[in-house]
């Protein structure tokens, strides 16, 4: 909508006609005061304004419009028949007009100008809208980011708290199992000592009583072993710094611990090509103690155990990964010719207290392989087994050569 401001009605009518011919809607005001009132109420995209009017003249109206945020962008086109001198034209531009046209007016030129200013005004408005939208968007994003940051902070805090809580619980649990194991061992130690004293000093000639006592001693021995293993299992959770460990040396130590059993069972043991890895020596020793111990323990009756422990470097943390001399993982296999187990129990053998074997024939607490698995996992490795009943078992371990332990 275009506003025409002129104190002479005939001028307004003429102008209105020209605009109408070009489908341009217009409104009219007969004085500066009326124009201001209308501008305050309605939205105009262009003002065509006479300069000389009684009361407030065109320049004054333009100046007022320029001083208000809402109206300062509306283009003002001055149209004058009388004030054609340069000083008026200058003043027209100074007061905020976009053009100053003098009469007589060529209607075609006027329409061209009007259309140009309308278009400019429209573009300006569009730009303004885009700018407004953008700044709104920026506001929204800023707020969202702020919210996000707050949320992230809150979440982080929650996580940290949860983590602390978990660590505390974990620590408490470790303490608990340590204390329980220790306190359980204490009375057991007494039972063992006193029952042995009783047997040695008082039951010399009573085979039945000796048998009962032997059973008691053996039961308390089993319980003692069970508690020791539990103690070991709970200790695995504590943090120790990894160090460079020669697996050959670890195996030497393990085998020398089994000296007696190896000799007794006439076992043949072959150790080949083990790497140095970064790990916790005491735990790695425990790992192979349990695996080699199992191979010795679960040997076929009347058959000498044959145990092979060999390693190779592989490229990936995958049991199928091919050998690679520059691989970052090592695969260590402990292979025996023992009684083996049905491979369908594979998932069970590593779970605590899942002893597959007949207790009377084979001693085992059902913790050894659970400990082995926990140690391997603590070293960021993998463990699995292959086995065939009556043929033997292979326990296969993958360990990274160097690592950052938790």
């Amino acid at each position, binding site marked *: 909508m275009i506003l025409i401001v002129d104190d002479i009605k005939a001028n307004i009518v003429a102008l209105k006609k020209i605009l109408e011919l070009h489908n341009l809607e217009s409104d009219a005001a007969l004085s500066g005061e009326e124009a201001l009132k209308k501008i305050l109420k309605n939205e105009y995209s262009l003002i065509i304004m006479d300069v000389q009017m009684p009361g407030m003249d065109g320049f004054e109206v333009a100046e007022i419009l320029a001083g208000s945020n809402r109206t300062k962008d509306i283009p003002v086109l001055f149209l004058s028949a009388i004030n054609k001198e340069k000083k008026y034209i200058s003043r027209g531009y100074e007061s905020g007009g976009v053009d100053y046209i003098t009469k007589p007016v060529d209607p075609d030129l006027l329409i061209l100008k009007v259309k140009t200013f309308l278009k400019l005004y429209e573009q300006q408005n569009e730009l303004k809208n885009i700018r407004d939208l953008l700044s709104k968007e920026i506001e929204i994003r800023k707020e969202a980011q702020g919210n996000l940051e707050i949320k992230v902070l809150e979440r982080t805090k929650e996580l940290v708290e949860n983590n602390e809580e978990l660590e505390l619980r974990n620590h408490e649990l470790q303490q608990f199992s340590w204390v329980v194991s220790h306190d359980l061992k204490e009375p057991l130690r007494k039972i063992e000592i006193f029952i042995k*004293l009783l047997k040695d000093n008082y039951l010399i000639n009573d085979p039945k009583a000796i048998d009962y006592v032997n059973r008691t001693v053996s039961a308390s021995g089993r319980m003692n072993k069970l508690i020791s293993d539990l103690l070991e299992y709970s200790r695995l959770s504590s943090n120790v710094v990894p160090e460079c460990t020669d697996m050959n040396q670890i195996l030497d130590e393990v085998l020398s611990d089994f000296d007696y059993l190896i000799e007794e069972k006439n076992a043949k043991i072959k150790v080949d090509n083990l790497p140095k890895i970064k790990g916790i020596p005491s735990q790695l020793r425990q790992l192979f103690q349990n695996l080699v111990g199992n191979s010795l323990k679960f040997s076929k009756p009347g058959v000498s155990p044959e145990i092979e422990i060999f390693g190779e470097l592989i490229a990936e943390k995958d049991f199928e990964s091919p050998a690679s001399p520059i691989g970052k993982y090592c695969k260590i296999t402990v292979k025996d010719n023992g009684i083996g187990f049905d491979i369908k129990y594979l998932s069970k053998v590593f779970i605590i207290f899942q002893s597959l074997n007949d207790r009377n024939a084979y001693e085992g607490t059902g913790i050894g392989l659970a400990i082995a698995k926990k140690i391997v996992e603590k070293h960021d490795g993998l463990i699995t087994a292959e086995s065939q009943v009556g043929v033997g078992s292979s326990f296969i371990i993958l360990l990274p050569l160097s690592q950052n332990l938790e």
Partner: protein
Amino acid sequence: MTHDIKTILLVDDDQDDQLLFKEALHEAKNSVIYQSACNGIDALDKLNSQLENLPDLIFLDVNMPKMNGIDCLKELKKSDSLKNIPVLMYSTSSFSEYKKQCFANGALDYIVKPDDFNQLCLKLKSILENGISPVTQNSAL
């Protein structure tokens, strides 16, 4: 330690261990006089009341109520009249942190309570016959 051990004080809150120790001690050497106290405070009281007649050797348990073995050891070593009595730590726990502390505070050795009566007899017999030489910390840990 070369002089004869005539009297041994056992500081232990566990009645069973006291009984076993006493019997093993007499099995090892009948003439040795056995004394006992049931915690650190009790031990210090007993020792301070018999300054003229101190034991030749103290077996000191680590985990005890009221005053534990490590604190008792520190008190013993602070006292001019008691600091020269050799002290052997005697505990079920083989926790290396305990051992370190005991050696740092002047214990001569750290003996883990045996699981077997005969072992205890043999250990005591060996101490009574050969004496004890201070163990270097590293080999004991």
